[in-house]
């Protein structure tokens, strides 16, 4: 795999000027729309507004597609938010996921030494100077330890934290020039920035990998890499190699319906086990992070974005699953308090709308007994649509639990995989088997 640097805007000067021009273009688009607005009929106005938003989003996406580093990461995150962005833009952004420009071998080597104090060839029996995969914050090289173990060495681009802060400052300034920021809320940008900044500490990721490797051990179908602490720092992480292919590559092999259903079952089990047993979940359902094998096992990699769930949030989920609260006004009040943390009367209409969507989605995924449905087909677009709507709504609702946006992102990632697999599952059976294993349920 080769990595072209042809279109990357890697110098701060060019990145700044590119964002500056983007700001001017967005402002011009916005002004153009505002000038036309008073003269348009309401339906035409809505159409024009949609056109303006699509054009602005496209400009933003095209720009960040050409930016190396953190803004590319922002693009990746936005590409997961299907309904927030138009379909053609998501298709453009999905290309970003494997096209980060690479460090040349001399820089990667220098970076490795600056972090570990020795050159790769002094630490490994074999080290491939060319990366086999690129990520926005780093790139991955294959290596073999002196003990003969195949490993993956992820090396971070130098000075990423500074670049992230500069890029986000520039991006905020850019979005201020137009009202585009209302389309992409500043809180969302802030949340993404702090998330990406945390991802620059690979030792944090190492701790996450070790935690999940231990906690997910009861699920025999899950493969988690092992951390080589002696060859890892905050900027370089060495992990055992995990084999497998992306879901798209697996689907090209035309797997049988039974196999797809089996994989779907494993994915749902994995998600529910993380929520109900581990109380922490892998929050980056990026297609490159799930590696599927012909034996039905699933390799889980990249633990840079992980969310630990508070006891309160776990209690909320468990109460939500019981369904009985929907009929009992006292329990309903309690549920609303669990969600918003304050007087339920203060809940905003957006938040109540979100709750309704969540109930509807839950009933589609885990049908109530009276519906008489044993198996749920994830090929049904309704489930994914509701997931998308929920994702959009939860970003606008002020909830007591900060975990919710991450939870909905992981949940949406799950439904996206299940939809692609066209899996048909007995979801209630899976849920009950996981809940039955819990002592307090």
């Amino acid at each position, binding site marked *: 795999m080769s990595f072209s*640097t042809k279109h*990357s805007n*890697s*110098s*701060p*000067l*060019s990145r700044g*000027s*590119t964002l500056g*021009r983007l700001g001017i273009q967005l402002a011009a688009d916005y002004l153009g729309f505002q000038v036309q607005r008073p003269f348009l009929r309401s339906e035409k106005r809505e159409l024009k507004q949609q056109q303006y938003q699509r054009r602005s989003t496209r400009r933003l996406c095209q720009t960040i597609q050409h930016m190396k580093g953190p803004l590319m990461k922002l693009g990746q995150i936005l590409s997961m938010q299907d309904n927030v962005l138009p379909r053609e833009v998501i298709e453009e952004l999905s290309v970003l996921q494997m096209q980060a420009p690479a*460090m*040349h*071998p*001399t*820089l990667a080597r*220098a*970076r490795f030494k*600056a*972090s570990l104090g020795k050159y790769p060839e002094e630490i490994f029996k074999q080290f491939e*100077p060319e990366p086999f995969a690129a990520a926005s914050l780093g790139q991955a090289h294959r290596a073999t330890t002196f003990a003969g173990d195949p490993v993956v060495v992820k090396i971070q*681009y*130098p*000075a990423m934290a*500074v*670049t992230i802060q500069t890029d986000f400052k520039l991006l905020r300034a850019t979005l201020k020039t137009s009202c585009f920021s209302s389309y992409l809320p500043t809180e969302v940008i802030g949340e993404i920035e702090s998330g990406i900044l945390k991802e620059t500490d690979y030792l944090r990721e190492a701790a996450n990998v070790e935690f999940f490797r231990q906690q997910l051990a009861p699920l025999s179908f899950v493969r988690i890499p092992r951390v080589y602490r002696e060859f890892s720092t905050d*900027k370089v992480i060495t992990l055992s190699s995990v084999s497998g292919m992306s879901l798209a590559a697996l689907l090209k092999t035309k797997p049988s319906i039974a196999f797809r259903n089996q994989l779907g079952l494993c994915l749902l089990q994995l998600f529910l086990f993380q929520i109900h047993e581990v109380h922490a979940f892998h929050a980056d359902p990026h297609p490159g992070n799930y590696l599927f094998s012909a034996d039905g096992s699933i390799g889980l990699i990249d633990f840079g974005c992980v969310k630990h769930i508070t006891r309160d949030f776990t209690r909320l989920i468990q109460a939500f699953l019981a369904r009985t609260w929907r009929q009992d006004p006292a329990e309903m009040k309690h549920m609303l308090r669990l969600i918003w943390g304050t007087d339920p009367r203060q809940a905003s209409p957006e938040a109540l709308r979100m709750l309704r969507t969540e109930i509807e989605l839950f009933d589609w995924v885990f049908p109530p007994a009276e519906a008489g449905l044993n198996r749920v087909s994830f090929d049904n677009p309704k489930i994914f649509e509701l997931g998308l709507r929920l994702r959009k709504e939860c970003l606008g609702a002020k909830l007591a639990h900060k975990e919710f946006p991450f939870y909905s992102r992981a949940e949406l990632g799950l439904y996206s995989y299940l939809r692609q697999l066209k899996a048909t599952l007995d979801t209630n059976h899976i849920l009950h088997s996981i809940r039955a294993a819990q002592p307090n349920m």
Partner: protein
Amino acid sequence: MPIKTSPRKRNVGPGKAGKRAQNKETNRQAILKAALELFRQKGFDHASTREISRRAGLAEGTLFNYFRTKEDLALYFLERELVELIAWYEHPGPLQRAPLPERLFAIVHHHLEQIAPYEDFIGAVYLRALQPSSKLSPLSAERRELNRRYLSFIRGLLAASEAKGELPPLGEPGAYGFALFHLAMITYWLNDTSAGKENTLAALDRCLQFATRLLQRQGQWDWQ
């Protein structure tokens, strides 16, 4: 009739002159080693020539036969580093086939690695070099030969890239431009307090990528 040969002519070892030159170089290196150790302990300005000669195991008068001042010592250090840098670069290996930005990156980075153990000393040398009357000043007569060798090395490297079409014809100004950039990077590196001097790595890479792209487009930057 057998040809008579004198025993002196059969001697295969270095001649007297060669041996003398070898001894001279050994002494020079012993003095530099002692000086660098002292500079690291006491700093360039506070280490005296008497202390240097004592540490090198030589009489102070002998030291003056080799280096008249500490600035001469610093010039010898710079010269030795340059010779080593050129020899390292010209050694056959995968770097020779790498794209130009990577090769230029490797040159500056290798130089920084070489001088890293003497960071304080280099800092003092750079401060001295700012004084026009100093032998260490880039414009001094004493540095002319050193500058010529460096510029000829860089010029040769850029000329090869120009011949391959990697760069537009830059001529002498190209080598001067890179020399200035190299100096600027050393100054940046000296002031870089980031862990593992990662900011220097980033700045070096980004500047070279940007400059090469700009030159390849002959200044006509395609902003799209």
